[in-house]
């Protein structure tokens, strides 16, 4: 089987690559095939950000949307039809540095320099998405958007300074109209050819379902933030790949009266944005999901389909009562998310089926929602324990409660017994204590490198206590939102 030609726009030029295997990463193509060694490999698993590059394609309103992503775990074929910037592409023809670069130099943000290209590209993404739109880069924003880039030399302070310094330098802008025109040419050319060969990237849902039925052995990928590691770390090879991220229908977030439907190809960044729009208290939780480059590539559908017991979106979705919609040419199935899983990384998907939508109910009046994540590091870590509690207390009684938990079983789970114990009960300290005990007894977590079983069990219950305290209006009891200002005014 032939693989299709990869075409993307870089430095104002059209780049065409042929005979690229379907499982070759973008970083390999950059460093080995194109001999552009400015982009570095630090970890090969999307955790350090040294390989960060920026992709852009027109968004729903036609303007370019810029996304910093990890090239080490991104399949090269997935950038077909996009514009790509690497660290080599920012400086002017005369060698003048881009503000993202100049600010790093001036602020002494580069020591050993190995993480630097990745930071520069994350800064470039921030520059396009914020500075060029007239938005100030605050310290907080810089910390959030650089959370997927690790530096071992500087201690970050000078890099955070650089992020804020960019806007003080003479503005440099991308000729967006030219890029958009080039991308439009690529799109037109692409539409003439149906998806075939070793890398299948259908553009419509019917096309996807037909290909899935015809190629049940093909490896389905979305943002590749997990499957990419199967390639780089487990050395798996895929003769054929089915990429769902170009399916127009699945790239949508649709709002209905009672729920939001998030397509399986919607990135985690956009999916969380939709969830946070309805429930602003989830903003920090969303920002703590991996680092920005992973959120920019990975999809909510991928996180759900992948079904890791420590995947962080599922406890939330379960607590919110989300449903997952599976589709095949035979029709669709709709089920509560927790019913999707049958065991450790096992689910009910048939060979010809794909995850198509995640339906998340809108907030109910009086809903009290808290999402707790315990991890070794605050940002860009996977939780040891995750607990999400969504309760509606009416007249002092638990009218409704949804509890999702991660890190405590072989799959993400609903705390069915604890929910049952609470439902219809008066919401009192005793009820909370009872819920704490039930929650601890409901799961038998394991010990691993993230935490011991005893700790997981203990904290699971303690998080229920935290939830109780928060429903009682206690402030400043969660370090997630704890700042110096709170420290001085209890």
């Amino acid at each position, binding site marked *: 089987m032939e693989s299709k030609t990869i075409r993307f726009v870089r430095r104002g030029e059209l780049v065409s690559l042929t005979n690229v295997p379907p499982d070759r990463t973008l970083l390999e193509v950059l460093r080995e095939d194109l001999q552009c060694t400015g982009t570095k490999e630090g970890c090969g698993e999307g955790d350090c950000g040294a390989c960060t590059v920026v992709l852009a394609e027109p968004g729903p309103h036609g303007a370019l949307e810029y996304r910093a992503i990890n090239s080490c775990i991104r399949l090269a074929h997935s950038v077909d039809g996009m514009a790509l910037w690497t660290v080599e592409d920012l400086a002017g023809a005369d060698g003048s540095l881009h503000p993202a670069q100049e600010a790093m*130099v001036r602020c002494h943000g580069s020591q*050993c*320099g*190995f993480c630097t290209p990745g930071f520069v590209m994350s800064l470039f993404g921030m520059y396009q998405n914020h500075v060029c739109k007239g938005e100030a880069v605050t310290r907080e924003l810089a910390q959030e958007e650089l959370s997927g880039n690790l530096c071992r*030399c500087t201690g970050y302070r000078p890099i955070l300074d650089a992020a804020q310094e960019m806007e003080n330098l003479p503005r440099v802008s991308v000729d967006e109209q030219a890029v958009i025109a080039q991308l439009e040419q690529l799109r037109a050319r692409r539409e003439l050819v149906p998806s075939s060969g070793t890398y299948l990237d259908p553009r419509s849902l019917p096309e996807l379902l037909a290909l899935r039925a015809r190629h049940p052995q093909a490896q389905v990928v979305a943002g590749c933030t997990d499957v990419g590691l199967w390639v780089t*770390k487990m050395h798996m090879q895929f003769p054929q790949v089915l990429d769902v991220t170009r399916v127009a229908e699945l790239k949508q977030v649709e709002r209905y009266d009672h729920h939001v439907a998030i397509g399986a190809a919607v990135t985690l960044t956009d999916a969380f944005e939709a969830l946070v729009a309805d429930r602003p208290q989830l903003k920090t939780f969303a920002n703590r999901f991996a680092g920005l480059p992973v959120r920019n590539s990975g999809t909510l559908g991928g996180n759900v389909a992948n079904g890791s017991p420590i995947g962080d979106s599922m406890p939330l979705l379960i607590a919110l009562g989300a449903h997952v919609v599976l589709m095949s040419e035979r029709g669709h199935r709709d089920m509560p998310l927790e019913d999707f899983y049958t065991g450790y990384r096992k689910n009910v998907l048939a060979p010809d089926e794909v995850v198509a939508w995640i339906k998340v109910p809108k907030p109910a009046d009086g809903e009290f929602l808290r999402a707790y994540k315990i991890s*070794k590091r605050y940002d860009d870590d996977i939780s040891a324990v995750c607990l999400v509690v969504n309760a509606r207390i009416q007249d002092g009684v638990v009218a409704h409660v949804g509890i999702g938990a991660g890190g405590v079983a072989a799959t993400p789970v609903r705390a069915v017994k604890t929910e049952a114990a609470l439902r219809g009960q008066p919401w009192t300290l005793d009820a909370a204590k009872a819920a704490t005990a039930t929650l601890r007894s409901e799961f038998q977590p394991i010990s691993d490198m993230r935490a011991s079983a005893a700790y997981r069990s203990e*904290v699971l219950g303690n998080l229920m206590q935290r939830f109780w305290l928060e429903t009682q209006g206690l402030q400043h009891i969660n370090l997630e939102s704890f700042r110096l200002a709170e420290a001085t005014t209890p």
Partner: protein
Amino acid sequence: MNAPEKFLAGTAVAPATGTSHIHESARAQVAGAATYIDDIAEVRGTLHAAPILSSVARGKLRGVDASEARTMPGVKGVILAQDIPGDRILATFTHDEPVFAFDTVECIGQVVGVVVADTVMQARRAARKVKVDIEPLPAIVDVREAVKAQSFVLPPVTVRRGEPEQGIARAPHRLSGSLDVGGQEHFYLEGQVGYALPLEQDNWWIYSSTQHPAEVQHWVAHALGLENHAVKVECRRMGGGFGGKETQAGHIAVWAALAANKLKKPVKLRLDRDDDFMVTGKRHPFAYDYEVGFDDDGKVTGLKLVLAANCGWSADLSGPVADRAVFHVDNAYFLGDVEIVSYRCKTNVQSHTAFRGFGGPQGMIVMEAILGDIARALGKDPLDVRRANFYGIEERNVTHYQMTVEDNILDPLVARLEETAEYRRRRDEIAAWNARSPVIKRGIALTPVKFGISFTATFFNQAGALVHVYTDGSVQVNHGGTEMGQGLHTKICQIVADELGVPFHKVRISATDTSKVPNASATAASSGTDLNGRAAQFAARQVRQRLADYVAEKQNCRPEQVIFANGQVSGPDAVISFEQLVDDAYHSRVQLWSDGFYRTPKIHYDKHTLTGRPFFYFAYGAACSEVAIDTLTGESRVLKVDILHDAGTSINPAIDIGQIEGGFIQGMGWLTTEQLVWNEKGYLATHAPSTYKIPATGDVPEHFHVELWHEANREDNVGGSKAVGEPPFMLAISVWEALRDAAAAARPDGRVHMDAPATAENVLKALQA
């Protein structure tokens, strides 16, 4: 002609040293144009290697079956111990480490051989298909178990002064306890890499991401059965080192060279990050037992301390690391009657190695823990107890290893930080706040650092450099030090620029190269600038002297009257540009290049008793850290950090502050989020950044303030500066002490036992124990 006075008064510019020049490679680094080993354009025919790892912690190696691997696409060969033409044991000091395992394996991740293929991924896939037949034997993973079994890589060492037993027995107060402090993965962003190119007549060109090119040269020659002159090792820069590329880079280079030797092709070996974790050594985890007596002021009257270093399966640098831990148990404190027993334990895990601080942090932390505990036992402010134990100026000024502390600035330095950080006011305010806060507790600690500067292996304290002035007046410097991001090359350009009186941009550094400056020591022990900066300064000075002699002869003056500044050279009669002078001198056949050599004065010590003057001087610093913990989960955050650090007369303040901030955050990682977890089989479960968490942007304290202590080094060190690479690392002990302070606030008994790192789990445990 311009008179020199007029010229100097009119256009004087600041000298290069003392200013915050940007890193000499910064502009290339931000443009992706700075070359690391894996970025070098590959020579035609280059093959790629991947290691075959032991999956058993200890066992008899019965055989290696690579038949399947050999049939895989692209595979060109499998290299094992029998393919080593030279010594099968690496040329380490203790000569205890096989190049490739044979007969036995001693840790999971020990390298048995390498597979070579056309591409990296082909080699890695095939390496996993090699079947290594191992008969498992009982293994020791835990360091305390190793002590019990008397399993050592080197014999124990005891340092003793006075009568500690009596000091403890007679004391009005006594405490005893134990502590466990975890190791640390270097996590240099650039993984280990070596690239071996066979040249004509059995000569070799090795590109290695190494802090110690001369050792790589020596090891490669030894393994290939060649003399050192056949091997040239080059390193322009590393993507981070932190000690992890002091000895560990040598293994990679040797493996690549052995493969290249067998296949007669250039071979590159770049470790995958997971393999890097599994193969290479880390900071030594330590276990401690102590007994201390103290008076009503908290002054230590007697201390008995056992330090058990988990060295892993071979000695590597464990001897000197454990020595430095012994040397730094005192930190800033006078220990009159003391006994320190140091065990160098052999366990079946990775062979632990150098890491920023080199045992110093592991020595200091236990003393800080003891003083914190003493303060809580007495109900005193920990800073008061620390201060009561500080070294004196005229008395109480001799260390337990018999070195007089001559440059003590602890009192004024700590007093100033105490004031600027408002330590006392905040301590009171935090206590009041804690009383009102049911879930979150805050803590604060101010801890000092006194760190000895010099390699403890005295002979390492030497350096060489070459300064070449070309006929156009441009200058190239080469020295034995390596650049790993610490700004060494930048500082040396500054030093040489000032010595020759030329602007910074006139001076360039070339890659570190064993064929230019031979026998160079590792760039380690914070000594890079002290040693190589002085050597380069001396080299430049010799060139300047020759030029001054030349001018003096022409202008009929004394050479001292010739002044080099601002790119101009002035004698009593005339001022000419440096370029013009150089060109004239060349045509008059004046030698325009020179070598320079430096060895550190004053130092000596007896390595058997660990007594003498191992250090030329001490670097000082102090940090005040404030933290908050969540008593429900054990989670913590570092809120506020103030640092005052002694870098002497700073050659480059921006670089020095960068070292202080970076060292502090790295130390904070060691003591908070960075946890290495080996399972009972000796398998390192945290072998990737997904599970091993170094600090990220969100961990930077909201308030993070660093100031330099402005006082020249009292010893004659280059430019009056002090070494700055390692000392700030230990400022982070303040974070750990602040966490213990917060934990104590949440306990009714006010006591706290907490192992490091202070993960959420360990903090919660400390609250409940």
